[in-house]
């Protein structure tokens, strides 16, 4: 789809696409939640941008406001709960100020990959139906059969084996990893320019996590989609991001390129976070020249 974005520099500092405006431009975003126990400021004035083809990660411990940020961008926080101020321009339209803009970008310019794949799909509708809905929203002219063909193609793209059979399956018949892939397929159905991935792997076990992340990166390579990644796992952040913003209590405490943040954290909070990751210690493959051998193994293998 977006060919022009393929030329993104691998240099993490460059975050502006060739046309000069970032895809996502967040300024002074502040989210206040009106709860029963008073007003909670979940996001406290953050600024960041995501350029085309870039991966930007928000990292921080549970409850620091990562998901709230993502939801606020898409105006998905219930009106009765959140008061959002500041601005968030997606492809030039401010979704904070303009509900219509938010509606227009949802499912078209931006897609969300939700935090918990197990609860993100309606349990009483088939996967095919939910994927088909997403496709037909993007391409209203498509008939049922065409949408199905396209959906099956998408499922194949996210490495779901036997997509024809699975089209009629219900979410509970899938494993967590597969569901996450379905959700990615649904997100891709929108042919988005920006993917908001809210902890796409924390509900999954480590082995499945690798597959999902791999898939996301593969997609980015192929389509040049920009990704706003949200995670509390430094390992994940390190491996997929161009830039990382470390979040604490609704504010950024540290921002920088992925290697900077992980290899040389400046803030004690970041260092704490890093220290909490249980060390695995060295192993025999560390001594080897690198994972080149692994990279040569066939990439597309049915998983799940």
């Amino acid at each position, binding site marked *: 789809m977006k060919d022009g974005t393929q030329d993104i520099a691998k240099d993490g500092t460059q975050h502006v696409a060739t046309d000069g405006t970032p895809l996502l431009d967040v300024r002074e975003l502040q989210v206040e939640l009106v709860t029963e126990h008073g007003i909670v400021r979940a996001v406290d004035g953050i600024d960041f941008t995501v350029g085309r083809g870039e991966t930007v990660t928000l990292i921080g411990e549970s409850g620091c406001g990562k998901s709230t940020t993502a939801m606020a961008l*898409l105006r998905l926080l219930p009106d009765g709960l959140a008061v959002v101020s500041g601005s968030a321009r997606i492809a030039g339209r401010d979704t904070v100020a303009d509900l219509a803009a938010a509606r227009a970008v*949802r499912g078209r310019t931006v897609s*969300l990959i939700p935090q918990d794949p197990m609860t*993100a799909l*309606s*349990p*009483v*509708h088939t996967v095919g139906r939910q994927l088909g809905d997403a496709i037909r929203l993007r391409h209203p002219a498509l008939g049922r059969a065409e949408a199905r063909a396209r959906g099956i193609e998408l499922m194949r793209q996210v490495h779901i084996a036997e997509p024809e059979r699975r089209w009629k399956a219900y979410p509970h018949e899938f494993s967590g990893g597969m569901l996450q892939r379905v959700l990615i397929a649904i997100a891709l159905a*929108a042919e988005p320019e920006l993917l908001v991935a809210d902890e796409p792997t924390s509900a999954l076990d480590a082995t499945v996590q690798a597959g999902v992340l791999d898939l996301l990166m593969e997609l980015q390579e192929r389509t040049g989609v920009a990704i706003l990644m949200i995670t509390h796992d430094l390992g994940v952040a390190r491996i997929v991001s161009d830039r990382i913003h470390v979040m604490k209590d609704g504010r950024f405490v540290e921002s920088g390129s992925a290697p900077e943040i992980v290899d040389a954290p400046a803030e004690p909070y970041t260092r704490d976070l890093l220290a909490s990751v249980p060390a695995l210690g060295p192993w025999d493959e560390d001594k080897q020249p690198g994972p080149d051998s692994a990279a040569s193994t066939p990439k597309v293998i049915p998983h799940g």
Partner: protein
Amino acid sequence: MPTYLLRRLGQSVLTVFLTLTAVFLLVRLAPGDPAAAYAAPTASAEELVRIRGQFGLDRPLLVQYGIYLRDLVSGDLGTSYSFHSPAFDVVMDRLPYTITLAVSAIAVTVLVAVPLGVWMARRADTRRELGANILTITGQSMPDFWTGVMLLTGFAVVIPVLPASGFTSWGGLVLPTITVAILQFALVSRLVRREMTTALAAPYTTVARSRGVAERALVWRYALGNSAVPLVTAVGTRFAALLNGVVVVEVVFAWPGVGSLVVRALETRDYPLIQATVLITASLAILVQLLVDLLYPLLDPRVRLGKAA
């Protein structure tokens, strides 16, 4: 699945059988004498004895029960004392009315209470929702007799647009239907509200919204689809209960349903008629519940038959 069905059917048949046995015993243990209810108050003791003999009530209880079962197996539900015709026929004369009223009342309930519940879920905690809530509760808590007669007076006398009683035309169905439905509105709309509130707050709704699904589809497809099981359970239970008839409403609207029939049969101690009515309506009600059970897997693919959720 077939084994499950067979087992459920077997259990249901057993339930009907035990139910019937209980009724058989209870009506005979309760004070009152079918012969006395049948005969004129001036009837002589001798005559009463003859009548009891004619009804077969002079035999030991166990023998009566045996005969009853034997006849039952051969499809004979006995002859009604007061109608002097096969009890089965008497019930069948009335059953269509009961089913008509039950179906239409449930249909109206669903058509009104579901949208109302959805509306309440979306307007949760507003003053208007509170108003609707109070209104439905009040409707439910006024005696049904009162509701019926008020509707009658309103729509058959003050603004005479509907017939007052009986089922002489389809218009005659309107008022009894509304009266029965009013009793269910509060319950069903509150259930829908509760379910919809949960479903609308569920992650899959938010996620669906995030991919641009229209609000209307969110509500009617996603949220309602996920509320189907409890809704169908509640509606199915109500429907099953309505198949026993709604005595007061039947009386008020001169609706010849089985509810007033069974009460009348009790007043005349018409044992065969009581037993036939119970057998037929209980079988129907149990069948409805079985169907509802069988429906679950279609409404929610996670439910597997024979497994408690």
